[in-house]
C-alpha cells in the first residue's frame, strides 16, 4: 500500500503515525500509572480500576454542566478544575475502599481480585442508576478541538497533545513523589518490609491508605482526560481493564520505569500494526504477542526478579 | 565450568552466584564426605543459606559446579535433586499448614511422585508403618491427626525434620534447626539430631555454639561469600580471623 505515495507523503504518514502511537502511549501510561502504584507497590489487584477512571469522567461531566450553568465565562478552563475534582473524588473513594475492603485482604491477592470485581459491578450499577444507562456526552471547551498543523501534511490533534503533556506532568509528579519525597520513601519502606517499617514508626496503615488513594486518584485524572477521546458510560471502564493490566504486568509490575517502557512498546506495536493491518487484527496480534512474551519471560520486560 | 569427579559425596567447586552484581557466594569450594557432619557458621549475610539454596536448586548458580556423587546438580530441577538424595530443611518451618501431621509425612514419603503415581497412590501398610515410625522419632506420634498449623513452633520444626527423614536422603541439609526453640525443645532436638545424623551426611547451619561443638567434627566458616576458615572446631575457634568477624561478636 505504500507504493501509492510520494516520499513526502510517506514522511507525513510516518510522522502522523508516530504521533498516533505517542497518543496511544500516553493513554496507556495514564491508565496504567495508578494501577502500577497499587499493584506494583501494594500487590493489590484492583479490578475496579476502570470504574475509578469512569468516576473521574463523570466528575468531569458534572463539572462541565455546573460551569455551563453557573460560570459560562470560565467554561474554557473548567477542564483543569474538573481534573482536580476528579483526582479528589476518585482518591477519596479509593481511600474509603481501602479502609472498608482492601486492608482486610492484604496477602490474599486473588481475593482482592474477586472483591474488587464485585466492587466494580456495584460501581457500574451505581453509575447506571445515577447517570442513566446511556453514555453521557461531555461538552469540551472549544480550544481542545481541532488539530495543529506542523507542516502542510502533518497534523496533530490538540487533545492528543494535551493528553501527552498531562501524561508527562503526572508521570513526573509520581516519579518525584515516589523517589524524591519523604512520603515516597515511606511507601517504599512499607513495600519492602512492612514489619520493620512499622517498627521504626511509620504508620503503615496510613501509608497504605494514601498509596491506594493516590493510585485511584490518578485513575480519576486519567478518566477525566479520556472524556476528550473516549466514551463515558457505566461500563466504559471495563473496556480498559485487560489492556491496563497487561501493560503493568508486561512492564514488570514493580517498576514505574518498566510500566512506561511497556506502555511504549505495546502502543507503538499496536499503532503500527493498526496502520498496516486493521484494528481488530492489530489488537489480537498485540495481545497475543504480549501473552506469548509473558509466557516466555514471566517476570515482564524490565523487572529483575520473578515475583511469586 | 564442570568440576572433576571425586570420591566425595558432595563436591562444591568454584561456586559463584551474584544478585545484580552482588556476589553472595564467591568462588566457593568445599567437599563433604560420606557420613560426614559439616557445620557451616558465619555472621549474618555471609552466604550460608544461599549455599544451601544453591545445592538444593532453589537458587541457580551463576557459575561453578556442585556434584553430588559425581552428578552435576546445578542443571537439575529441585525435585530431581531431592530424588537424587538431597533433603533440605528451611530456616523457618516449612510444612503444610492445611494438612494433618500424618498427611504431611505421607506426602514426603518417596513413592508416587509423578502425577499418575499420586493419583494411584494407596495408603498401604508400608506407608502407615513408616509414617508412624517417623512420627515416633520426631515426638509426634500422638499428634498424627492434628492439623499441622496448630502445632507449636518446635513441633513444626520437628515435623519438617520428619518430612526429610521419611525421604531417607543421603545428604541432609538443616538450616538453624534449633532456632526459636524453648530450652526443653532444644534438648530434645539435639537428641533427635544425634539420632538421625548417624547414617548419613549432614550439613548444618547453626549459630548456637554449644550445639555446634556438640555435633560438629568439621566446621566451615563463611564470610562475605567466601571461606574464611575450615577445620575442626577447636582450630576454627582459635583462628583470630574467625574470632574477629564472628565469634567475637
Amino acid at each position, binding site marked *: 500500500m505504500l507504493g501509492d505515495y510520494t516520499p513526502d507523503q510517506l514522511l507525513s504518514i510516518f510522522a502522523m503515525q508516530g504521533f498516533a502511537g505517542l497518543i496511544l502511549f500516553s493513554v496507556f501510561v495514564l491508565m496504567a500509572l495508578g494501577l502500577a502504584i497499587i499493584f506494583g507497590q501494594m500487590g493489590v489487584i484492583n479490578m475496579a480500576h476502570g470504574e475509578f477512571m469512569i468516576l473521574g469522567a463523570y466528575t468531569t461531566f458534572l463539572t462541565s454542566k455546573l460551569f455551563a450553568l453557573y460560570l459560562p465565562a470560565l467554561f474554557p478552563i473548567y477542564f483543569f478544575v474538573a481534573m482536580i475534582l476528579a483526582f479528589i473524588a476518585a482518591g477519596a473513594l479509593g481511600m474509603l475502599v481501602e479502609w472498608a475492603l482492601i486492608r482486610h485482604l492484604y496477602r490474599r491477592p486473588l481475593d482482592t481480585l474477586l472483591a474488587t470485581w464485585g466492587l466494580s459491578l456495584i460501581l457500574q450499577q451505581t453509575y447506571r442508576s445515577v447517570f442513566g444507562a446511556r453514555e453521557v456526552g461531555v461538552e469540551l471547551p472549544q480550544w481542545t478541538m481541532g488539530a495543529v498543523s506542523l507542516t502542510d501534511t502533518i497534523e496533530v490533534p490538540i487533545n492528543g497533545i494535551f493528553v501527552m503533556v498531562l501524561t508527562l506532568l503526572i508521570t513526573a509528579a509520581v516519579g518525584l513523589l515516589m523517589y524524591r519525597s519523604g512520603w515516597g520513601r515511606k511507601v517504599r519502606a512499607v513495600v519492602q518490609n512492612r514489619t520493620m517499617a512499622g517498627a521504626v514508626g511509620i504508620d503503615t496503615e496510613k501509608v497504605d491508605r494514601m498509596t491506594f488513594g493516590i493510585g485511584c486518584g490518578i485513575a480519576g485524572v486519567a478518566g477525566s482526560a479520556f472524556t476528550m477521546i473516549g466514551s463515558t458510560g457505566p461500563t466504559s471502564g471495563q473496556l480498559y481493564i485487560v489492556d491496563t493490566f497487561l501493560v503493568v504486568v508486561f512492564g514488570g509490575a514493580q517498576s514505574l520505569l518498566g510500566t512506561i517502557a511497556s506502555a511504549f512498546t505495546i502502543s507503538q506495536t499496536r499503532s503500527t500494526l493498526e496502520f498496516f493491518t486493521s484494528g481488530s487484527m492489530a489488537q489480537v496480534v498485540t495481545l497475543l504477542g504480549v501473552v506469548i512474551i509473558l509466557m516466555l519471560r514471566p517476570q515482564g520486560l524490565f523487572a529483575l526478579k520473578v515475583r511469586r | 565450568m564442570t568440576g572433576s569427579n571425586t570420591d566425595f559425596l558432595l563436591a562444591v567447586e568454584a561456586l559463584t552466584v551474584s544478585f545484580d552484581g552482588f556476589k553472595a557466594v564467591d568462588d566457593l569450594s568445599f567437599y563433604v564426605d560420606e557420613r560426614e557432619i559439616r557445620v557451616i557458621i558465619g555472621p549474618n549475610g555471609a552466604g550460608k543459606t544461599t549455599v544451601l539454596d544453591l545445592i538444593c536448586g532453589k537458587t541457580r548458580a551463576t557459575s561453578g559446579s556442585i556434584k553430588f556423587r559425581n552428578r552435576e546438580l546445578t542443571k537439575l530441577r529441585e525435585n530431581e535433586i531431592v530424588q537424587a538424595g538431597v533433603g*533440605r530443611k528451611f530456616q523457618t518451618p516449612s510444612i503444610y499448614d492445611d494438612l494433618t501431621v500424618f498427611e504431611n509425612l505421607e506426602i514426603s514419603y518417596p513413592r508416587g511422585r509423578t502425577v499418575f503415581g499420586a493419583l494411584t497412590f494407596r495408603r498401604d501398610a508400608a506407608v502407615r508403618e513408616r509414617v508412624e515410625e517417623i512420627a515416633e522419632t520426631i515426638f509426634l506420634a500422638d499428634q498424627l491427626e492434628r492439623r499441622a498449623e496448630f502445632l507449636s513452633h518446635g513441633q513444626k520444626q520437628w515435623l519438617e525434620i520428619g518430612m526429610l527423614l521419611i525421604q531417607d536422603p543421603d545428604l541432609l541439609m538443616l538450616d538453624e534447626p534449633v532456632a526459636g526453640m524453648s530450652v526443653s525443645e532444644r534438648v530434645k532436638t539435639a537428641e533427635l539430631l544425634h539420632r538421625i545424623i548417624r547414617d548419613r551426611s549432614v550439613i548444618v547451619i547453626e549459630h548456637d555454639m554449644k550445639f555446634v561443638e556438640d555435633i560438629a567434627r568439621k566446621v566451615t566458616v563463611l564470610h562475605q561469600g567466601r571461606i574464611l576458615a575450615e577445620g575442626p572446631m577447636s582450630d576454627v575457634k582459635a583462628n583470630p580471623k574467625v574470632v574477629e568477624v564472628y565469634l567475637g561478636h
Partner: protein
Amino acid sequence: MPSAPAPATGPAASPAARDESTLFDTKEWLAFALVAAVILVVFPLCLDAFRLNLVGKYLTYAYVALGLVLCWGFGGILSLGQGVFFGLGGYCIAMFLKLEASSAANTKIQSTPGIPDFMDWNQITALPWMWQPFHSLPFALLAVVLVPVLVAFVIGAAMFKRRVGGVYFAIITQAVAAIATILIVGQQGYTGGINGITDLRTLHGWDIRQDGAKEMLYFVNAGLLIGCILLAQFVKRSKFGRILVAMRGKEDRVRFSGYNVANFKIFVFCLAAAFAAVGGAMFTLQVGFMSPSFVGIVPSIEMVIYAAVGGRTSIFGAIWGTLLVNYAKTSLSESFPQLWLFGLGALYIGVVMLFPDGLAGLWNSHAQPTLDRLLGRRPTPAVQGPASGATQPATLPPQTAAE
C-alpha cells in the same frame, strides 16, 4: 525402604488409619447422595419441562465450578479464562450439529449449499479444512475434550514450567479470554461471529429441540455431571488432592519433597478445562446454540463466583453454589433488575470477606454441629465420628476448622 504394597489393614487403633481407600467418607456419602437425589430425582419430578431445561443449563455451569474447585480451591490456581474452555467444548459440538443441520437439502437456497448459512453469507464457498472432520460425531466428541485440554496444556505448560502463578496467571488467562472473544467475533466466516452458531436441530437425526429430547439430555447432563463429581472426588481423595492443597500453601516445600510441581498444576488445569468443556458441550446440546458471549472476561469471572459461593474447596458446594447463584440471578433480575447487579457485586465482596468458605463453610460451622447434636442424641451411628473438622481437615481454611 519398606515398599511392599499390602491391603489397607494397617494398625487399626491409630486414628491415622482412617480409611482413605474409599471414595467417600460418611459425610461425603450423604452429601453426594443428596446432590444425586436432587438432580436425578427431585428436579425431574418437581419441575416442568421448561424449568427442567433451565436447571439443566445451570448445571452445565456447575462443571466449570467443579473444575475451579480443584484448580483454584485446592490448587490455588485461579483461572479467569474458564469461559474459553467452556466455549471451545461448546463450539466443538456446535460445529458437528451445525454441519448436520446444513445438509445440502436444508441449505438449497444458499449460493453454496451444504455449508453452514453464516459461511455462505461471508462468501465462503467451501467448507474450511478445520470444519471438515466435524462431520464425524466421534471426532466431535473427542474434540470436545481434547481441543480445550490441548489449549490448557499449552498455556499451563508455558506458564507453570516458568513458575508463573497467582495473580499473573489470572491476568494472563483473562487476556486469553479477551483474545478468544475478539477472534471468534472477528472471524465470523469460520465461527459465526457474534451471533454464534445457531439453529442447531438434530443429533444423528434425533431432534434435540423436542421436549422429550430435552428431558433426555437433562439426564445425560446430570449423569455426566455426577461422573465428573466422582472423578473430582477421586482426585480430591487421592494423594494428588493432598499435594494440591500442599502446593497451594507451600509450593517450594512440595518441590523439596521431590515433586515436579509444574506437572501437577498442568494436570489439574487441564482437568478443569476438560470439565468446563464437557459443560460447554452439554450447554450447546441443551440450549441449541453457542455464542462468544460465554467465552469472554465477564462470563469467565462470573463462573468463579459459582465456585466461591459454594465454598471454593467443596466439590458438592460447587453444585449448590452454581444452582443458587443462577436461581437468584433468574428470579432477582426479573423482579429487581437493579438490585441484581448490586447483589452480585455484594456477593463477590461478601464471599471474600465474610464467608470465604461459602455455603460449605456455613454448613460446616452452623448446620453440621446442630445436625450432629440432634443426631448424636439419637442412636444413629451414621454420622458419628471425629469432630466435624476432622473428616475434611485438609480442605478447610482456618476460620472454620478451628476446633
